[in-house]
């Protein structure tokens, strides 16, 4: 999601101006045809999957790429002279090239594979953080961060005596940019904020954030776990020093995440975990480490997951991230309008720039009850604190229900959500 982009005209994968064909897209996802809550004598309900911000479903292209890889090409990577090991290495490393292109990173060496987004934050905290931060230095995060971008800094704080500062947000869920700028004090050495909120949907002005931080010599890290699946990302255009994303929200498999890091930063960082694959030479007296990104990838990597992520990137790239963004923005506008027709329903997060994530509460009905009822209607949403407890406190709610849309969702599914919420209100009436 480039910083200045609004939804661009819808275009098909072949570059023509054919409309985004969501019915055709849905055929690529086997799980979307299944029914849920089937019982003897009672037909199931069609699945309305609106929990994409937690994890997205997988297209056949991803499922088949992983199966084909296991049936035809599988071996360990980076260490064998035999045919399959070379083949496996080529395919796995091919995904590094795909990720680099997907994020418009300047070089494949700037892409580090991790287990998930969470590990990427921990990696930066424990390598860059430990090497570059000392007691009294500060990391500035925001009030809308996921626990994955809070707790690793608290661990580092407990280890080294750094401070954690928190930039506030406005009532509509936007980052308070005036307050943010004011918090860029000399002790701040890292700004670590989300590109897109998993609860509010807010897309933060990352380019402005990077510019303000860089003007003071502060390094920036962006959490792209949500934003990178809803629109195009260009880490060079936004001038990110670190950028984190995850595979399973991008229609790829679980078990693989990505850390982009500016090459000069990665090259100067000490290793993360120790083990095989990350070393140059090992003796009992002294071990030397490989260059980035391999220095940060100890042990056998998530090879099969890497193949799946490569296929997922091919898939969304063929559809076009601009086209996906336009489709989701249309859905967001439609679903927001329809939900707001429901009396007593409050949408949490109404920033002008949003991804297709709708958190809401209903007067008098606890989100957990909403979740159970919607589920019986076939509508899968997330309820709870969404790994963002401080944000729940900010809005004075214990929890919310969250509907999050993906590239295969439809207006009819937004209608199904509204219908189920309306029935839920009647049930508890």
């Amino acid at each position, binding site marked *: 999601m480039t910083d200045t982009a609004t939804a661009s005209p819808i275009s098909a994968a072949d570059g023509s101006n054919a409309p985004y064909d969501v019915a055709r897209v849905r055929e690529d996802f086997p799980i979307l045809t299944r029914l849920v809550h089937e019982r003897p004598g009672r037909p199931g309900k069609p699945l309305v999957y609106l929990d994409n911000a937690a994890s997205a479903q997988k297209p056949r292209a991803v499922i088949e790429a992983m199966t084909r890889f296991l049936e035809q090409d599988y071996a360990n990577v980076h260490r064998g002279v035999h045919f399959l090991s070379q083949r496996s290495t080529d395919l796995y490393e091919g995904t590094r090239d795909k990720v680099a292109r997907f994020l418009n990173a300047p070089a494949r060496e700037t892409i580090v594979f991790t287990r998930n987004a969470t590990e990427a934050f921990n990696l930066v905290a424990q390598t860059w953080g430990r090497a570059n931060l000392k007691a009294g230095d500060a990391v500035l995060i925001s009030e809308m961060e996921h626990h994955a971008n809070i707790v690793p800094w608290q661990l580092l704080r407990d280890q080294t005596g750094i401070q954690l500062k928190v930039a506030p947000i406005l009532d509509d869920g936007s980052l308070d940019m005036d307050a943010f700028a004011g918090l860029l004090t000399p002790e701040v050495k890292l700004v670590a904020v989300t590109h897109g909120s998993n609860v509010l949907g807010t897309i933060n002005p990352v380019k402005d954030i990077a510019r303000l931080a860089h003007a003071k010599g502060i390094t920036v890290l962006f959490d792209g776990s949500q934003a990178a699946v809803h629109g195009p990302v260009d880490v060079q255009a936004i001038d990110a020093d670190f950028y984190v994303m995850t595979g399973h929200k991008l229609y790829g498999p679980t078990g693989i995440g990505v850390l982009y890091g500016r090459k000069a930063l990665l090259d100067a960082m000490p290793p993360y975990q120790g083990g095989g694959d990350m070393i140059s030479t090992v003796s009992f007296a002294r071990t030397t480490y490989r260059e980035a990104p391999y220095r940060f990838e100890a042990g056998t990597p998530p090879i099969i997951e890497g193949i799946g992520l490569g296929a997922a990137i091919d898939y969304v790239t063929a559809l076009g991230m601009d086209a996906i963004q336009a489709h989701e923005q249309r859905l967001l506008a439609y679903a927001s309008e329809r939900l707001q027709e429901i009396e007593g329903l409050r949408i949490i997060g109404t920033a002008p720039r949003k991804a297709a994530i709708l958190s809401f509460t209903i007067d*008098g*009905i*606890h*989100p*957990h*009850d909403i979740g*159970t*009822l919607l589920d*019986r*209607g076939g509508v899968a949403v997330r*309820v*709870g*604190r969404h790994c963002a*407890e401080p944000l*729940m406190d900010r809005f004075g*709610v*214990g*929890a919310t229900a969250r509907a999050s849309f993906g590239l295969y969702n439809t207006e009819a599914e937004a209608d199904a959500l509204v*219908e*189920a919420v309306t*029935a*839920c209100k009647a*049930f*508890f009436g």
Partner: protein
Amino acid sequence: MFDDLRDLYQEVILDHGKNPRNFGRPEAFNRTARGDNPLCGDKIAVYLTLADDGTIRDVHFDGRGCAISQASASLMTDILRGKSTAEAEALFGAFHDMCTKDEDQWTDHGAVDEDAMDKLQVLSGVREFPMRVKCATLAWHTMRAALHGEATTSTENAGF
């Protein structure tokens, strides 16, 4: 749309959920604990007034939660008033079994107030909803923590 949810959300539950009994922090109490379900954000507090002989003279609760957890807490406060500590423990055990185990696996918790168990029967529907069991048992775990003099309990580390 939700016909088969009537087993989970029986009228008694909807009633207690909307109009919880013994709700609010009382002026006097001598045992209290907070209970937390971090998965759904529910937080409640239970306030007990124990007599010298261990009889539960009064029970109140406050906090926020779903219809199931509010109703369960409300029912519990009604049921426990006047019970001995041992009776409360026995009810906890029997209720926990009812919410989490098939009937042939229920264990002997000693003398259990059958009338009370009949009233708690309305919550047995959670058995079919594994994600909601903790909603029903949160108040009871919190009550037990208060009895045992523990300040807090959480559904994520108390072996719920």
